[in-house]
């Protein structure tokens, strides 16, 4: 009962906060309400973890009755893992870009922004915790609408065009998703993720394959539209950076969650991986993504673009891990998600800082930052350990589990190609960062000065140090996250 009441608080808190932001005259409280909602949600989730581990899932089901939309939920290891990481990333992004957003908005628009942000948060939490198809569809739409609304504050015509394109793709994919759910309801008599549809003998394989392709396209266009934002990567607009971070990190996390949810709870892993050819294609596409991202990282000289390609590499590794479908590969997903959500995000935040204050996020600018504000640059030195996948870091454990899963005398060992290529690029990037921090350079711009006000220096120092300390915390308690990943893998394989 306590778990259920915790959950309702988790879900409705952002909604209440949103209403408050719309109506309240206290402008200065909007940010604190938003951030408190995220922290409260994270706290409630962490409190629920022991129950979820022992019971495997906690739910309340009203089976498509009128109450279902507002009161139905199911929270399990999959949703809790992804949601905690997504909330952590969301908090970091909001805190980091808060001043830039508020500078752009007037007092009048601040309330609207935070209200929409909290609706977005509400939708996000429900996407991870709902168990009904229709509810999932509704919350995905709310999420997409609120994201589009947030992007409208940028007042950048180029960015608005991209956002509109993204929204159109989203609409198209929503239609495909709705069709899929309708087919599932009509043919397989299923309205929720309680049991996979492949356990029902009513439907044909052809229909399921068609549904699988619909879902595949939906996931690609809804959650991985990174290519749309690539051209805006080098934009100095901080709002663009905020939206790209949301799109690149949060949406991708949601995307991976949806992939796993559909594979294990909608279609059934038995159906998806029964065809060896399909598994191989899945694995190869992950490897290709890693190689493509690696080539991109190698060619790029700007940290912001490199972050985009890094996300591709991480995505490729996660997709490859899913395709192997064994205990160790599924364990690696947790660590890759942590790396994706924290380390990549740190690099992106740093690149936004360089872009905003030094006009470029190229490596040459890092030396200037180090010369002028060494305390702000110090976290970057520490991040080299995490980027180079030193032992005991999240990326190391991700690679460990994936290599363990792939070291078989079978086609699975092709994953080692992806690991070698990804590692090559990680090393290359860490050496480039190292060189930019330590290499002496006689060019005139190396002596350039930048000026930041005391409050900005404090803010950026605190921001970068907080993220690095959070990543270090994860590293120190890798054993706990190892148990979580182990439980998650066992849970998924038991479905």
């Amino acid at each position: 009962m306590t778990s259920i009441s915790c959950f309702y608080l988790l879900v409705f808190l952002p909604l209440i906060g949103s209403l408050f932001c719309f109506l309240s005259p206290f402008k200065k409280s909007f940010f604190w309400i938003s951030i408190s909602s995220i922290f409260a949600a994270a706290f409630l989730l962490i409190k629920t973890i022991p129950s979820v581990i022992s019971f495997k899932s906690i739910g309340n089901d009203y089976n498509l009755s009128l109450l279902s939309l507002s009161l139905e939920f199911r929270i399990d290891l999959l949703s809790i893992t992804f949601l905690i990481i997504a909330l952590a990333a969301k908090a970091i992004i909001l805190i980091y870009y808060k001043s830039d957003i508020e500078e752009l908005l007037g007092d009048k628009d601040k309330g609207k922004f935070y209200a929409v942000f909290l609706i977005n948060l509400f939708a996000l939490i429900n996407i991870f915790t709902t168990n009904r198809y229709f509810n999932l569809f509704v919350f995905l739409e709310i999420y997409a609408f609120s994201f589009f609304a947030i992007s409208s504050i940028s007042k950048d015509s180029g960015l608005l065009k991209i956002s509109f394109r993204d929204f159109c793709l989203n609409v198209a994919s929503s239609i495909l998703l709705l069709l899929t759910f309708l087919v599932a309801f009509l043919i397989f008599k299923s309205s929720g993720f309680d049991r996979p549809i492949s356990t029902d003998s009513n439907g044909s394989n052809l229909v399921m394959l068609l549904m699988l392709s619909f879902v595949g396209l939906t996931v690609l266009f809804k959650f991985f539209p990174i290519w749309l934002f690539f051209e805006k990567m080098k934009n100095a607009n901080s709002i663009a950076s905020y939206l790209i971070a949301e799109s690149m990190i949060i949406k991708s996390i949601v995307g991976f969650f949806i992939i796993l949810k559909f594979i294990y709870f909608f279609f059934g892993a038995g159906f998806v991986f029964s065809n060896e050819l399909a598994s191989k294609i899945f694995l190869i596409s992950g490897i290709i993504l890693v190689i493509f991202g690696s080539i991109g990282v190698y060619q790029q000289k700007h940290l912001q673009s490199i972050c985009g390609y890094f996300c591709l590499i991480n995505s490729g590794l996660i997709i490859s891990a899913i395709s192997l479908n064994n205990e160790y590969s599924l364990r690696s997903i947790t660590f890759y998600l942590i790396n994706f959500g924290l380390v990549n995000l740190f690099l992106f935040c740093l690149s936004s800082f360089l872009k905003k204050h030094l006009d470029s996020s190229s490596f040459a600018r890092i030396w200037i930052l180090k010369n002028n504000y060494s305390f702000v640059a110090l976290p970057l030195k520490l991040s080299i350990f995490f980027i180079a996948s030193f032992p005991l870091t999240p990326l190391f454990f991700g690679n460990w589990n994936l290599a363990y899963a792939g070291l078989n005398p079978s086609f699975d060992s092709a994953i080692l190609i992806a690991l070698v290529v990804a590692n090559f690029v990680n090393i290359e990037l860490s050496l480039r960062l190292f060189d930019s921090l330590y290499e002496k350079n006689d060019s005139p711009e190396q002596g350039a000065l930048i000026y930041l006000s005391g409050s900005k220096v404090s803010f950026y120092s605190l921001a970068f140090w907080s993220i690095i300390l959070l990543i270090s915390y994860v590293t120190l308690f890798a054993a706990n996250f190892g148990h979580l990943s182990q439980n998650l893998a066992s849970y998924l394989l038991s479905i």
Partner: protein
Amino acid sequence: MIFFILLLLFGSPALSSIFASANKDGSIFKTLEIAFPIIYLAGIFGLTRSLINNGGEIYYFTFLIDKSSLIFLYCTSFIWLGATIYLQRFWSLVSQHDAKNLKVFLSITILLLTFVGVSKNLMMTLFFYSCIILSSQILILKFSKINETKYLKTFNFLLYFETFFFFLAMVFTYKLTGRIDFIEGGIIYDDFGNDEKTLLLIFFGLGLFFSALLPYHVFFRKINFELCSTFIFLFLSYGLVSLFILQKVIIGIFGFSSFRQFFDSSLINIFEIFCLGSVVVSSVALTFSKDLKNIFFNLFFQQIFLALYSVILFGIYDAKMISLVIFSVSLGLSLFFFSASNIEANLIKSGQIDLNGMFHKMPISSSLLIFCLLSFAGIMPTSMIIEKFSLLKIAINERGFVSIALIFTNLISLLFVASKILIKSLKTGVEQGGDFSRDLDQDSRLIMPAILGALLMISGMFLVKII
């Protein structure tokens, strides 16, 4: 008790690096600089006693101390003490603008080597090995000249890539055995397939020597490393630690009996041919070396490949000799560094470009240099003669032409280089050295580490049974 000893071993290089970074010149700091390696050595003496009392093996927290790690720590201790005494005096005579950073780097390397030496499992070994590579990057960026930077960056990049193969080796070990600890007798059981053991050994081999695999350094013609850079970066941070880890893997992961059994003749043949090729290329480069810096650089590669070959062969045929390789190569290359640095300093000060008449100007340093080269060849009464003799015995009895060719390539090339240096340095009619040459050659603090190294190498001949 073990806790305090380990605290001494980790604390002294850590504190030394902190004091070195303070860059003070007072007598207290200079005394402390030498005191730290002495404290370190005292710690190792204490560890030796504890090891004897504990029956030859100590497991403490995530640390393992056994005979092989103790020998490694003794070698590290000698190198640190000798280098500190030597460089402190050397840099007061020959100014070095980045001496402070070199001191800091040396202390950090010793600290990390200590951690590697007492690591209980592959994970900790990989972590500290990666830290050594990372700190080497600083050395490259700060100290290398423009011509050398490209080579060093390539080398260091390959070192990082090497760690990935080591990582794969670690994962594979865990997959086969369910553990990654170093255990006396090994953790790889005899009933594992030869294919798996071979693949594992290949991963470990690539994970430790990938960056030195191909002699691509011959294509970087303009490189001319300072002796100090070769000694600290190539030898200390790479060669010595890689050899030691390989030794630890053979003893603690494979175990001698398992290693001997699966290493069939076809595999050894391939390995021999590879080593022969590498030694031949290095030997040719060595014979064509123009100055002491180049000689040291090519000597390093030649001896590392020979040491690698020795470790593997002793691992298969004569396990008792395996620790002697680390002992010999570390003392030998240290001795070469101390004696060659003296001569090189004299060359720089006097403006001389060759070694003509050097024996008359600096008889002690020149003698020690020749002594070192002939020891490497295996014809001087040092521990290396025992090593080379054992190697030759195995080559004749168990192996064949390729092994014998390898040993003789080493011998001939070193004899050639030694005789070339001797002929030049014995030339008469060359302008006599001034006070500076005499000062360098007779300065006790410059000569003492080299003489101590030579004495240890000679006494090593009698201590083979202990080693």
